[in-house]
């Protein structure tokens, strides 16, 4: 049976939104608010691939409440889970495995100050936003991935098709086979987050990034810990960079003291690193042994683990965000402000602006499928644009000059000129093209995990509650199955084994016996493979609905 030829049921909505993250949920809420204000009937459907809203949300997170305040001025009354105001900011440069230098407050770039911000679980914020959305009348469907674009004959986006359920590992439908549905909409908002798989198709379909610099990414790995109550300082925010990263690999760590004697610790590594032996997972594990961090974690217990790529190219890499029949919002477009390492408020705002643009069009009698170029003006007149433009040099400066001089540049740019320095630094090299041959490096010997502060990959994935039905085709597709062993292995020692934070990719056997194994069941949907594979040979597609991690409180 050819699955592309099946008859599909179809449902129609005014607006379909893909992804229940901050951007998609904010767009959904804003649409319904506008409909209520104008006493207009509006049908909004939001699909989410995670088993529930929040299941796939992973973020630091310290957030600015600006967008939430705009969307729900009575957010506190409504019980938004912004419970921990930031009390204190600390910024460190780790000199080596034992030494750290505290950066005096006066030298911290203004964007890195967090007074007035909140330490949150973004997953829980999304759970709360979904309740608000449902209360406003949005149809929220977790467990239903948007797996394909639905196009009109004129090439405009007509909606999406949800994933088929019940297809066996052999590609054949099982007894339980249930075909996905067409969800048709006048306008579709794509809010899939970093490296959304439909977003990726939209970029090429509509050449959305034709005038933008190459996008840049990082991989964030995060753990949630129960820590010793005597060491817990609710509201303490620690950031830093330096050790163990070096040799052209950059990034930064975070440690936030949240509620209930819990702390979150994480490391973001820029995916433009060149040494194929780098393992972000192992860098993170050994980083936790630095006394600055270990002192807090010692005697505690790790309770959750997860990883997710982040879009960090910022202003210069922003694509065109509108195309016939739809809009691209949030991290799916790249609205994260890397100078602040914050994307929630900007993502939400971009979603709210999309809602306003679409609602205005529908109210004027638009029947859908148009290219809503008016979104540009709304975006450019908003604080998101101002903020992103002011931070445009932050990432490129670090990429170009390294964290020391780049950091100094950022201090001058952000604190003295408030981002108005008449210089724009560019960084137009895609991350995947930055890998250098393995022959130029010696393999990195990472220390063995001690089982107390550091752990192996599989026991980490275990704590992400990741699950995929075993009997389904792999959702990690190789365009050319010979590349991992034929090219990537000799040239780059097949870096997938190391950049994947979930142990999905393995090279088994040696020499002529070597075989590339994909343990798709372990996948935490971070999308790093789709981004970093030097041959751009791995395509991440949506697995059966509900598959993937089940993050609680992340």
């Amino acid at each position, binding site marked *: 049976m050819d699955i592309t030829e099946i008859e599909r049921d179809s449902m129609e909505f005014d607006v379909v939104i893909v992804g229940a993250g901050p951007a998609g949920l904010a767009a959904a809420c804003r649409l319904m608010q506008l409909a209520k204000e104008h006493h207009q009937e509006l049908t909004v459907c939001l699909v989410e691939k995670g088993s529930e809203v929040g299941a796939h949300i992973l973020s630091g997170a310290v957030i600015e409440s600006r967008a939430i305040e705009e969307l729900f001025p009575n957010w506190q009354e409504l019980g938004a889970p912004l419970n921990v105001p930031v009390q204190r900011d600390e910024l460190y440069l780790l000199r080596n495995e034992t030494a750290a230098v505290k950066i005096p407050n006066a030298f911290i770039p203004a964007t890195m100050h967090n007074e007035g911000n909140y330490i949150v679980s973004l997953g829980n914020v999304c759970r709360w936003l979904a309740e608000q959305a449902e209360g406003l009348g949005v149809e929220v469907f977790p467990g239903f991935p948007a797996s394909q674009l639905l196009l009109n004959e004129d090439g405009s986006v007509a909606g999406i098709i949800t994933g088929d359920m019940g297809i066996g590992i052999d590609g054949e439908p099982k007894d339980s086979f249930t075909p996905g549905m067409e969800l048709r909409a006048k306008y579709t908002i794509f809010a899939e987050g970093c490296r959304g798989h439909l977003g990726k198709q939209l970029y090429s379909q509509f050449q959305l990034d034709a005038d933008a610099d190459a996008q840049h990414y990082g991989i964030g790995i995060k753990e949630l810990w129960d820590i010793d109550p005597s060491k817990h300082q609710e509201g303490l925010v620690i950031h830093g960079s330096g050790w163990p990263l070096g040799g052209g690999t950059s990034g930064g760590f975070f440690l936030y003291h949240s509620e209930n004697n819990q702390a979150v610790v994480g490391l973001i590594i820029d995916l433009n690193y060149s040494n194929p032996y780098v393992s972000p997972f192992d860098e993170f594990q050994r980083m936790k042994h630095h006394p600055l961090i270990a002192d807090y974690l010692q005697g505690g217990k790790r309770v959750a683990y997860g990883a997710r790529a982040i879009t960090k190219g910022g202003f210069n890499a922003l694509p065109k965000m509108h195309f016939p029949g739809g809009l691209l919002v949030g991290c799916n477009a790249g609205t994260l402000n890397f100078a602040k390492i914050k994307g929630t408020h900007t993502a939400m705002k971009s979603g709210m602006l999309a809602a306003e643009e679409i609602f205005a069009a529908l109210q004027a009698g638009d029947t859908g499928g148009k290219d809503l170029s008016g979104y540009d003006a709304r975006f450019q007149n908003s604080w998101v644009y101002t903020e992103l433009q002011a931070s445009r040099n932050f990432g490129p400066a670090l990429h170009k000059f390294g964290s020391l001089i780049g950091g100094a540049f950022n201090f001058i740019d952000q604190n003295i000129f408030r981002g108005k320095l008449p210089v724009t630094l560019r960084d137009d090299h895609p991350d995947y093209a930055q890998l250098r041959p393995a022959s130029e490096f010696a393999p990195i010997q990472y220390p063995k995990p001690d089982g107390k502060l550091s752990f*192996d990959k*599989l*026991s980490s994935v*275990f704590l992400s509650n990741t*699950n995929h039905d*075993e*009997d389904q085709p792999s959702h990690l597709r190789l365009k050319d199955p010979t590349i991992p062993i034929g090219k990537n292995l000799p040239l780059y020692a097949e870096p997938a084994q190391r950049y994947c934070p979930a142990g999905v990719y393995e090279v*088994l056997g040696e020499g002529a016996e070597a075989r590339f*194994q994909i*343990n798709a*069941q372990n996948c935490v949907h971070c999308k790093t493979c789709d981004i970093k594979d030097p041959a751009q040979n791995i395509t991440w597609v949506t697995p059966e609905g509900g598959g993937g991690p089940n993050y609680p409180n992340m």
Partner: protein
Amino acid sequence: MSNLVIAEHDNQNLKASTLNAITAASKIGGDIEVLVVGANCQAVAQAAAAVTGVSKVRVADNAAYEHQLAENTAQLVAALAPAYTHLLAPATPAGKDLMPRVAALLDVNQLTDMMAVVSADTFKRPIYAGNAIATVQSSDKIKVMSVRITAFDAAPATGGSATIEAIDSVFTADKTQFIGEEIAKSDRPELTSAKIVVSGGRGVGSADNFKIIYALADQLNAAVGASRAAVDAGFVPNDLQVGQTGKVVAPEMYIAVGISGAIQHLAGMKDSKVIVAINKDPEAPIFQVADYGLVADLFAAVPEMTSKL
């Protein structure tokens, strides 16, 4: 304190699970009596009377009890119950079928899979598939429970000389009709109920090599299991998979051959009574949970073991 242990049997043989339940009763303390409900089951009563620690065996031997149906067996047990403080049965499908029905007839709650006696009214039992252990206290006048077999050693089957007493009361199962039974005659026990499981991992290398695993399993009358890596590699079908996403087993002995011991696998077998690991890598995590570890080439060690057993 007085305990009544409901014997598990097939009218001919007393099942070993009863011996574990008797040990559990001995931890509670007080008299231990055994109830045998069946038809033509005198041999079972004799066997129960010989178990160390049993003071009395009560036998309800009647055609009405031939299939030990819950409907009437529960009525009988409930009628006898007021003479006891604790009613115990092995936590097998038979015991789990019967005991809640008995409890409801007595208007009391029931404890499933009791795994440790803290005191006469406080017990431990696994919840969340063994991922947490609950300590619970019962205020019921009669404590009705099923006993996790692997948590208690078997009481010695000999050495006792209990009196045997016949029970005349007969209850009939008017609404339940026994149609038939099919006890699998498979050469190999089922994975989840086997006493011994021999599991192979990626280290076994190929589907063909798995025959040495089957040979050892045959020798031990064991079931065969596998790690996810072995299943993913196509060595064996996925219904053999032991682990987080596969089957959870808790046999008396689990032999892990060529299995590294990823946490997903451990989640499926960590409750086994005795864990044996055979692996050539001395650093394999499986050794951290194994009671007996043998660092050796499995292709030599497994056939050697098979031949010497």
